[in-house]
């Protein structure tokens, strides 16, 4: 069944694509086989992340960017991530509300994803779903993260180009100086630029960029200075400049060799992430949930500590 699904996805069957994404989200045994079969067909899409605080207009900007890419002839896959409730496990995925312009276009595929317990602004399966859209032939994959604060920076490892969206009046200018979001931005967008304070927000971002230039992460950005662009996504103004900046960033990544550097960084993160999950699953399968609960109880009662417990569990693992 998986083999058939994979070949249908490669033929452009949208129903098969939607089914396969669900399989991957649910992490069933067939998912890994499907991803392995699709992997040779990946590596062509430009993955663009859109992140930023809640309420800055990320979905509306994604809507406008997708329209712009379509006008330029590129097909667009969209992954829109919203948070899962930690209490009920349910999720309200509302990003499509702002993407209604994109309905009826066979060159666009939109998928809403719940984080399902992940904390980095993406779902565990987001990276895999991007691979599937890439293999299905979408030239651009836009990834909208959950509304983030300062630390949810998974998108930077997942995307080739990361756009950080801010809006005027979200807090005092010092917010812009906070680490995390600023450091991962390849392009900064001040959306809702028709509102008071937009120029001030843009200036604060410019200053923060200037201050951060010396602490940029290695292998990044020596020659790329993230532009600060102003948009009003609701009426589309400024969006053409963002599209140009995305194209310029791609050209920069390719000419500087950073494209392959980022691909390798992503591959490494994917590999270690998958390894962690696999090793934990194997460990749990061998020692059992009950044993784990028992150790947790002992740690909580202060009879032992986490590190001693880990060593003991690993010893147990070796014996068996």
């Amino acid at each position, binding site marked *: 069944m998986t083999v058939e699904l994979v070949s249908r996805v490669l033929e452009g069957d949208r129903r098969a694509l939607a089914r396969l994404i669900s399989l991957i989200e649910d992490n069933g045994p067939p998912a890994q086989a499907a991803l392995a079969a699709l992997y040779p067909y990946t590596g062509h899409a430009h993955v663009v992340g859109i992140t930023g605080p809640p309420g800055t207009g990320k979905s509306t900007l994604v809507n406008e960017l997708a329209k712009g890419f379509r006008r330029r002839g590129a097909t667009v896959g969209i992954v829109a991530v919203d948070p899962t409730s930690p209490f*009920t496990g349910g999720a309200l995925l509302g990003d499509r509300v702002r993407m209604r312009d994109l309905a009826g276009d066979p060159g666009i595929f939109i998928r809403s994803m719940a984080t399902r317990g992940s904390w980095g602004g993406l779902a565990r399966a987001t990276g895999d779903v991007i691979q599937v859209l890439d293999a299905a032939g979408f030239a651009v994959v836009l990834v909208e993260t959950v509304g983030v604060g300062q630390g949810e920076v998974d998108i930077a490892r997942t995307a080739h180009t990361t756009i950080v969206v801010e809006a005027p009046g979200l807090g005092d200018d010092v917010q812009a100086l906070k680490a995390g979001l600023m450091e991962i931005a390849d392009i900064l967008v001040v959306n809702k630029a028709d509102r008071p304070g937009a120029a001030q927000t843009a200036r604060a971002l410019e200053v923060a960029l200037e201050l951060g230039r010396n602490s940029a992460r290695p292998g990044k950005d020596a020659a790329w200075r993230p532009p600060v662009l102003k948009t009003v996504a609701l009426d589309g103004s400024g969006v053409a400049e963002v599209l140009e900046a995305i194209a310029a960033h791609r050209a920069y990544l390719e000419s500087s060799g950073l494209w392959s550097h980022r691909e390798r960084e992503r591959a490494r993160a994917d590999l270690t992430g998958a390894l962690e999950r696999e090793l934990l699953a194997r460990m749990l399968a061998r020692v059992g949930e009950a044993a784990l609960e028992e150790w947790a109880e002992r740690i909580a009662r202060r009879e032992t500590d986490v590190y001693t417990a880990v060593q003991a569990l690993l010893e147990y693992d070796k014996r068996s």
Partner: protein
Amino acid sequence: MGKRLRVLIAKPGLDGHDRGAKVVARALRDAGMEVIYTGLRQTPEMIVEAALQEDVDAVGLSILSGAHMTLVPRVLQGLREAGLDHVRVFVGGIIPDEDVPALKEAGVEAIFGPGTSTLTIVEAIRRACGEG
């Protein structure tokens, strides 16, 4: 992490009252479902397309405009044509009693009028989608 029920909540047609749809969307979320909310003024074609892309188990249509006898059959037909026969369809809103048999005949799983408790809706969706 295993399978989650995915439900599309949509408002076809032109009426602008989405309070009920939002209350139901929230209740389904609180019941542990993943709810894709599409907002106002959706055409049947848009609803079918979203149901396909999101691979949902059920679609909930909220209609207060009185246009249910044209809109609902078009959604049902569109789902069939897209190969989505397995997707269960629910209708909420103001539906006169005399229209209920025809809608059920056309393939609607259940119809929820004003005052239906959200618990009833949650249970009906779970049952129809083979959970509980």
